[in-house]
């Protein structure tokens, strides 16, 4: 039992210790084994936490045995237990994939650095999710962000450097905004513990610094989660990073930022505060809609598949934020479900695109012509995930769309309903660009002899593709957890 008590700390410590170990070992195979062990251990730990939370309610863990409002508290509740499982699950799939993937994409002498940074990034993301301390969120945010910049810069195209630099600038501005917001909240409430902050918020509600904090946090986090129009860093970062990094980022990074937003909005400010004092609801709604349409349209006009799906990510984030802006249980359920569903889907797509880039030497539409013929499994996988992006029944995307539409219908906003379904038709357009290029064109002369992606890439991708379908058919895990999390958020942290 005593071991189980310490799971919240181990959740972060295990990958944290794997990072320096990988650095010390230097040999890429050893580094890989260490990080792999840590990642899978993290998955096991998060599953354990998830079961504990489902059984006995939220857990609290005092780091250094300093009790909650003063010390740093790790707090596991239905929402972040689910996020932890998701993040570590994706990492557990992407890491084996990266072993084969980076052979071709990263210089061999940098492999151990890659694993180190991957472990750090995972540490950061898990830390963001698990911590109950506002400043700690910032620290972990920067740990994951800094390691992400390094990971992106490892891409073999020189544009990766520029992408990483742009992300660094935007990400740092975002993080700094977040610190400012946290600082203002700290000044007003005198505490950094999120739960405590939420309780004390009642006394200072509506005062100007608190509203300013809300604004700073919203902008900062929106930068991190690439909410339209603060998304400019995202397409390049996804397009030029090594494939394994793209997949991991696409699946988790922005999603964790959404989690932070949820946490601040619903656990700290409280729903009434966020949506009552400022026109946040309308603002989020408009930005979400703008993102859904503008980013999807931009996706249609991309000539590179990685960029196409990167823009699609920006559009899909619109759906996630839209659900949040409803401020209802079903809306939040759709947000949380779509976090996971879209994360899994996009992760799968970028992993498969890694195989495409490896075999075909790039992912431009002109290059991947006739892909359906030479790489049938990969193409089929991307197609399935594309259908999930569209939101066709039988895929994970359908479930998210269902709850999103349900939330809109609950408020009798038919115009919104039609906007949502129309924007999902835009997804049909960009997915079908891929389909027509892959299946209706003959392969180019120089790639006729290309073979299917190696199993080391294909198998991990297949896991996520299968998950995409599975979460569209059996939703007891995703919707069950999401609904619990949504109800929990609406009930407040108290």
């Amino acid at each position, binding site marked *: 039992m005593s071991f189980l008590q310490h799971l919240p700390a181990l959740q972060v410590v295990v990958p944290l210790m794997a990072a320096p170990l990988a650095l*010390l070992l230097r040999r890429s195979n050893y580094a890989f084994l260490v990080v792999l062990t840590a990642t899978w251990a993290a998955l096991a730990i998060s599953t354990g936490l998830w079961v504990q939370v489902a059984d006995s309610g939220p857990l609290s863990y005092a780091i250094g045995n300093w009790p909650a409002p003063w010390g740093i508290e790790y707090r596991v509740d239905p929402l972040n237990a689910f996020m932890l499982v998701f993040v570590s699950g994706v990492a557990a799939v992407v890491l084996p994939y990266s072993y084969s993937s980076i052979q071709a994409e990263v210089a061999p002498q940098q492999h151990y650095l890659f694993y180190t940074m991957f472990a750090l990034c995972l540490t950061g993301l898990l830390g963001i999710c698990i911590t109950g301390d506002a400043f700690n969120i910032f620290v972990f945010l920067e740990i994951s962000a800094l390691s992400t910049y390094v990971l992106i810069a490892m891409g073999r195209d020189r544009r990766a450097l520029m992408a990483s630099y742009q992300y660094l600038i935007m990400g740092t501005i975002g993080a700094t905004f977040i610190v400012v917001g946290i600082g203002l909240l700290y000044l007003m409430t005198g505490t950094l513990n999120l739960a405590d902050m939420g309780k004390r918020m009642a006394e200072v509600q509506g005062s100007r610094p608190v509203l300013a904090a809300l604004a700073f946090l919203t902008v900062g986090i929106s930068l991190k989660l690439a909410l339209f129009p603060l998304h400019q860093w995202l397409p390049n970062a996804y397009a030029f990073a090594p494939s394994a990094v793209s997949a991991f980022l696409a699946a988790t990074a922005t999603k964790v930022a959404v989690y932070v937003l949820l946490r601040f909005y619903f656990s700290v400010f409280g729903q009434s505060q966020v949506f009552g004092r400022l026109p946040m609801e309308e603002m989020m709604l408009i930005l979400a809609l703008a993102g859904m349409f503008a980013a999807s349209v931009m996706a249609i006009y991309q000539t590179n598949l990685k960029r196409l799906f990167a823009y699609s990510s920006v559009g899909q984030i619109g759906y996630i934020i839209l659900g949040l802006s409803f401020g209802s249980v079903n809306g939040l359920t759709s947000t949380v479900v779509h976090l996971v569903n879209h994360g899994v889907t996009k992760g799968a797509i970028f992993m498969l695109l890694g195989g495409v880039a490896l075999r075909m030497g790039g992912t431009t539409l002109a290059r991947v012509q006739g892909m359906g013929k030479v790489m049938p499994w990969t193409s089929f996988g991307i197609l399935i995930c594309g259908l999930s992006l569209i939101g066709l029944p039988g895929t994970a995307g359908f479930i998210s769309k269902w709850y999103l539409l349900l939330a809109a219908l609950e408020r009798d906003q038919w115009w919104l309903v039609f906007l949502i379904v129309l924007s999902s038709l835009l997804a049909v357009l960009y997915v079908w660009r891929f389909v027509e290029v892959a299946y209706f064109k003959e392969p180019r002369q120089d790639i006729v002899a290309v073979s299917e992606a190696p199993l080391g890439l294909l198998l991990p991708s297949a896991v996520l593709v299968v998950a995409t379908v599975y979460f569209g058919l059996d939703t007891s895990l995703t919707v069950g957890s999401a609904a619990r999390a949504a109800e929990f958020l609406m009930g407040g942290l108290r």
Partner: protein
Amino acid sequence: MKNDLTLRVLAKLLIPFILLFALYVQFHGDFGPGGGFQAGVILAAAVIFYALIFGLADARKVVPEPLVESMMALGVLIYAGVGVAGLLLGGNFLDYFVLDPNSVHGQHRGIFWVEVGVATTVSGVMLKIFYMFVSRGEVDE
């Protein structure tokens, strides 16, 4: 600069004191301002100073790059190790109270090792950054 006698003598005179100061800042962190961060930076500054005067090659002989990288890693491991030690001794993660039967001593012991870890990592990182930028020039121009 390598040939400037004044600088060489001054450096040789100063560097021991800088190192000593770093240790002072490190261990005085228990009672007053100071601690691992500052000590680590001062420690790194001493090496950087040495490199500036005697050249990169000599500095690399004194503090080789693999050592620097290992320092970065080791520091974090020491830090986390203290935390895990707390776990193993029956407390929470980073629980210093259980590190010694006497909880005040436990606190001392905990913070001491944590600061050692911090200093190691910080000086490692500082040196890594320095080496990284300096070595670029060698390849480039």
